[in-house]
């Protein structure tokens, strides 16, 4: 059982000897590594929360001789900046996680897709990559990583849009199936994992799955790095054990006047004060890729919502109808409601539209616009109207 309350963990940024961990990993079989990941219960740290072991298992099962491991470092969700910190501080562990994944799925090539705005990190990252390549060859293992730089589109964090971008096309999500595990970048079986996920896999190899499962809850094992921002006296990066309630989180980070927390960024959920106590941060409650934004009573939730919708109107790729047009309708709709140009009951129509977007959009972007919309409109309806 999880200890009550909030506990800080030091796993992601913990200093390790990569050579030692990797030597250990390379001695394991592919099945062995995958079993360790499955046992750990690790779920993807990018936000969607797909079990990492399962992703590797599916990719490993593909018969193709060429496979890829892609590190998704296109950290674009408003309010998250943890991957930047991880890359800045412990990039060798990201590379290590990729090599372990490569060993598990049978890939000799890795690609880091780095958010364009993080290009200032690139010289340092390349230098560290060089030492990593040297170390790997000293161990006598063949694995190569390349960098690919994004150009500023939020949608390119979506895995299949990311592949399109890597291949030199417009970053637009593909139809699924086929899933990346069958046909990913360059049409080859691909495991695409978040920066933090990859680091976590390395730490699971070091400490063992059993140790990892001591942390967190049944549905949300382990710890996670949170990007804390908004109305807080202590903004920044914090690694916390999963399973705390929003209340516990607010007790630690709030300014005493917190009225809502946006968990998971623009595509996440808004938790109002009255639900702090009963909402768990994790896959059993509100999942998050790490973005935690606190709002105090000086904030207008209309402005918050407007800001998110503005963002989606810009950042939808524009190919599918529900997302391209739906985002514009939601934005225009709340503006008109606010101005009193349409009746407030129109909000109900917009909530229905958000529900349609959730089930009819082509990819995760359009499917998650409704999360913030619904939770803000439902909990702060009067702030939207008046």
């Amino acid at each position, binding site marked *: 059982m999880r200890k009550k309350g909030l506990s800080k963990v030091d796993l992601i940024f913990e200093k390790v000897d990569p050579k030692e961990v990797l030597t250990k990993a390379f001695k394991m079989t592919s099945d062995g590594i995958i079993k360790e990941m499955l046992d750990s219960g690790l779920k993807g740290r990018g936000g969607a929360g797909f079990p990492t072991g399962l992703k590797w298992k599916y990719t490993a099962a593909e018969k193709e001789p060429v496979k890829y491991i892609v590190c998704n470092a296109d950290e674009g969700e408003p309010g998250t900046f943890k991957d930047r910190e991880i890359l800045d501080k412990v990039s060798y562990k990201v590379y290590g996680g990729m090599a372990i994944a490569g060993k598990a799925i049978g890939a000799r090539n890795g690609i880091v897709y780095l958010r364009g705005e993080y290009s200032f990190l690139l010289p340092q990252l390349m230098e560290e990559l060089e030492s990593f390549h040297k170390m790997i060859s000293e161990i006598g293992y063949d694995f190569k990583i390349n960098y690919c730089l994004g150009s500023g589109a939020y949608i390119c964090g979506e895995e299949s849009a990311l592949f399109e971008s890597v291949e030199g096309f417009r970053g637009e999500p593909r*139809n699924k199936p086929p899933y990346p595990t069958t046909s990913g970048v360059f049409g080859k079986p691909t495991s695409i994992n978040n920066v933090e996920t990859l680091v976590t896999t390395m730490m699971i190899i070091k400490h063992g799955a059993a140790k990892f499962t001591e942390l967190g809850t049944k549905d949300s094992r382990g710890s996670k790095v949170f990007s804390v921002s908004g109305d807080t006296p202590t903004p920044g990066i914090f690694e916390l054990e999963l399973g705390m309630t929003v209340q516990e989180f607010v007790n630690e980070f709030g300014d005493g006047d917190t009225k809502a927390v946006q968990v998971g960024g623009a595509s996440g959920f808004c938790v109002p004060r009255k639900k702090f106590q009963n909402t768990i941060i994790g896959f059993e409650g509100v999942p998050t890729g790490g973005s935690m934004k606190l709002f105090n009573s000086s904030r207008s939730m209309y402005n918050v919502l407007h800001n998110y919708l503005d963002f989606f*109107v810009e*950042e939808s790729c*524009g190919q599918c*109808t529900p997302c391209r*047009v739906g985002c*514009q309708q939601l934005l*225009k709709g709340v503006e008109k409601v606010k101005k009193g140009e349409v009746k407030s009951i129109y909000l109900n129509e917009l909530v229905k539209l958000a529900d*349609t977007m959730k089930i009819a959009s082509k990819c995760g972007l359009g499917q998650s616009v409704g999360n913030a919309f619904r939770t803000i409109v439902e909990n702060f309806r009067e702030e939207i109207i008046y």
Partner: protein
Amino acid sequence: MIKLTINNQSISVPAGTTVLAAAKKLNINIPTLCNHPDLCVAGICRVCVVEQTGARTLIASCAMPVSEGMDIHTNTLKVRNARRHIVELLLSEHRSDCTKCYKNQKCELQALANEYAFGDTVFLSLVEDHKYNIDRSSPSFIKDDSKCIHCQRCVRTCAELQSISAIAVANKGAHQKISSFLDRPMSHVVCTNCGQCVNRCPTGALVEKTYIDQVWDAIYDPEKHVVVQTAPAVRVALGEDLGYDPGERVTGKMVTALRQLGFDSVLDTDFTADLTIMEEGTELLTRLKKILVDGNKELALPMFTSCSPGWIKFIEHKYPEFLSNLSTCKSPQQMFGALAKTYYAQKRKIDPAKIVSVSIMPCTAKKYEADRPEMRASGFKDIDYVLTTRELAVMIKQAGLDFRNLESSNYDSIMGDSTGAGVIFGATGGVMEAALRTAYEIVTGREIPFKNLNITPVRGMDGVKEATVKIEGCTDDWKFLEGAELKVAIAHGLVNANKLMKEVRAGKSPYHFIEIMACPGGCIGGGGQPIPTSMEIRKNRMKAIYAEDEHMVLRKSHENPDVIAIYKEFLGKPNSHVSHELLHTHYTERDSY
């Protein structure tokens, strides 16, 4: 085989079949919009969403392959609500001036709205929020972004069928649009005006530029003598816009209709198609002689046909170094135009300034071709107006003609006679077949040895076709060709043309003569033909073209009495000085972007 159930009915289909296709087999209709049988799956309009039991979201049936045990429902409340929302969303970004729209009653969005979104509008209109561009720069078509619903059929058409990508997707989110290189007007990009995008646009965002009113004005002007020519492929497709099934030949009724519309003389492009064979066939043989016998180093092989104005613009943009490989022959439309205001005018004793020359074409690129500055050999604009097959259907409806009950009649004389060889210009491989029928006979004095003159290897829908004709028993003039094997190739759709051209550029092309048509299937699949189009529809039109050929008494261009007469009375002989003045042209190198 994969077993699944759709609306509680079981069905087994091969792996890889989409849910949409499986439903179709059960006669369950699922509405679609971005889907098109000629194009790759996009899965972006989301109109075709259905419910899969156990799935978190609805699925796009056009993009979802079947899987074992799948349980699909196409008409649940969830599906209906989503579908209505999606159609409403599309309507909210579409400038709905339906009653005035050229595509009124032919618009796929309108049909969907009628079924799924009638009654009160749900959402706010977004049309005023955007600065839309209406591009009228091309003489062939209009691109009206305010009616675009972003289905990307046009984009896929231009990329997949034509390998040009003159239009592509630009920007993202609310600003996403279908655009050209650097947002240039369509007249200033690599667009070939082929109109294939127009054929596949579900709304009024891409339509041909229409000249119907100008033609009516000319018809009603007592001072003007209005001649009309009809291209081979029009007669096998016009019916589709007038209630007939694809592939029904309406040649005789069409001629009567044109006469009743008020054209002063109803003539046939098939006549100049036959003339093209005389000119181009002679050009090919002369070129072969100059290269093979005289050792001429300036002339090049393979020689390309030049009938398709989309293809001409394509090679001018993309492979300008091979412009000298093009036949210098004008297209049949333009040969006709040049002769209408010279030969025809003289014979009929009409002042050519008073002649208005109209052509009915399966093509939008022909509108561009008629506007080219080279096309004024008669001293006037050789062709005044080009109408598509679709526009002719509109005129027939405007005039209130009871088309189905019209008597058949024949073309007028002077430039109205034609042969089967002229007719088959309308299908891919037709120019080649017609050329071979005549050239072989010129060289050997005998008919080409194919049963019923049907040169089947050059027929059909394969993207690239090739054939070898062994020349034996040459007459004295052509002895140098004795025993030679004439290698020919045919491509239709510019994506296939591109394949052949890459070979040519790499110096690996073994051919002497190549026929290229810009549109899939040749002119029968032209950008001005009735909408919709599909492989099946094009095959039906093609069948009709060859049936038309079989029904002709004369099937070789050199036997056309009007052709024989014009050489005797006016042109002299093929490739004569007069021919060169009126019937041949030159080409222009253009930018490759």
